[in-house]
């Protein structure tokens, strides 16, 4: 219980820090918007093509955005060495990860939900009837991206060339998320939409596996 209450307090801190400046969210949203627009310039797709390729482009934009957005979550703590303070304040280092993962998931979801109508308008696809399925896919995908991304942000923050390193480590590890989320979203955007439960199960499995690995090994990532 102490773990959850500690994580809740730290989550509040993460969200407050972000919403005071809103730097991260605003930059990421603009970035995703630019990526989606640039994609539409390079393809100029018809509605049918958009249904097939659009979700892939959308998820790729989300992954690129995540690799930028996740970067500061540990770098921010380095400026005044606040990570040591956090480490002393909580009994279990996993609480720090849990808080950062929750905050990153929230920020990613906000970005994704704001981008969804823009994407639907620009690429001329309709998804309104399948909103619950899309929300579920976005949620599970974002949790997976945040779990792996937060862990790797902790690794890359301790290395040189960290801005370049995080996307390098993150993107290949997130291949399953990209593949499964894209296919599930494609199915949801077809004229006869359906939820691919097997894909949803795989996303949930990915989230659980990596959350467990992080729970087991997370404290070593924050060692002084």
């Amino acid at each position, binding site marked *: 219980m102490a773990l959850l209450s500690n994580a809740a307090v730290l989550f509040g801190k993460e969200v407050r820090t972000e919403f005071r400046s809103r730097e991260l969210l605003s930059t990421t949203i603009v970035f995703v918007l630019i990526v989606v627009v640039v994609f539409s310039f390079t393809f100029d797709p018809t509605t049918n093509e958009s249904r097939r390729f659009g979700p892939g482009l959308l998820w790729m934009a989300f992954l690129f955005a995540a690799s930028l957005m996740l970067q500061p979550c540990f770098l921010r703590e380095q400026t005044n060495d606040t990570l040591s303070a956090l480490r002393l304040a909580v009994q279990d280092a996993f609480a720090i990860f849990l808080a950062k993962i929750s905050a990153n998931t929230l920020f990613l979801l906000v970005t994704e939900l704001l981008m969804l109508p823009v994407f639907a308008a620009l690429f001329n696809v309709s998804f309104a009837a399948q909103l619950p399925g899309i929300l579920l896919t976005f949620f599970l995908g974002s949790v997976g991206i945040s779990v*792996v991304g937060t*862990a790797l942000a902790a690794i890359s923050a301790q290395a040189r060339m960290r801005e370049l390193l995080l996307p390098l*480590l993150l993107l290949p*590890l997130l291949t*399953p998320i990209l593949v499964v989320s894209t296919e599930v979203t494609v199915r949801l955007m077809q004229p006869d939409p359906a939820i691919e439960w*097997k894909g949803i199960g*795989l996303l949930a499995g990915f989230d659980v*596996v990596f959350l467990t690995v992080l729970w087991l090994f997370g404290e070593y990532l924050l060692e002084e």
Partner: protein
Amino acid sequence: MLRRIFFGAVAVGLVACAAYAAFYIAPEERTMGTIYRIFYFHAPTAWAGETTFFVCFVANLLYIWKRKPQYDWLGVTCAEVGLACITVVLITGPIWAKPVWGIWWTWDARLTSTFVLWILYICYLLLRTLVDEPERRALLSALFGVFAFIDVPIVFGAIRWWRTQHPAPVIMGGAGSGLDPVMKKVFFFSVLAMHVFAAFLIVERYLLEKTKYDVELMAREAEAR
């Protein structure tokens, strides 16, 4: 030194024998003809690479647990040797695929997961070059190694769900699969040869890493004086 030379000679000799057996002893395959003989290098190297990466994973876990530099040396050694094996697999695969499938590459489950495995271990080695302090480098790369190894079966599962073009398992597959007895002998001899050769490379590379560590330690001591 003599033992190392002997081990090296045995490893190279076994690979040479495996090559001879693959070209002259194994019978011709009915549909694919001679091109199928690359299978005696392709699959055994893949098995040797996967075994090596598994040893790397175990070494990573042991390093996180015990913090002995020896496990770090073993980790980086296995990552490099495994990467070399998988590089051979990724080169011999398309050479076989072009005449048989008519294409160099397809994004099926086994090919994609092998490719992702290859990229992940390149990233593992890249990460090591970007962390200066030896203990930190060992710990961070060990943790990334654990993440990378666990990811690969999920990649495989994720892509297998849609489609797969790679030949269904011939060895240890279900009913209707199986090899001609001579082919089987040659194949398992190649598997043995590739494993021994990989073990030889691991031993040599491990000793090199140990020397590197000793030199670094001496340099630091000299600097301190």
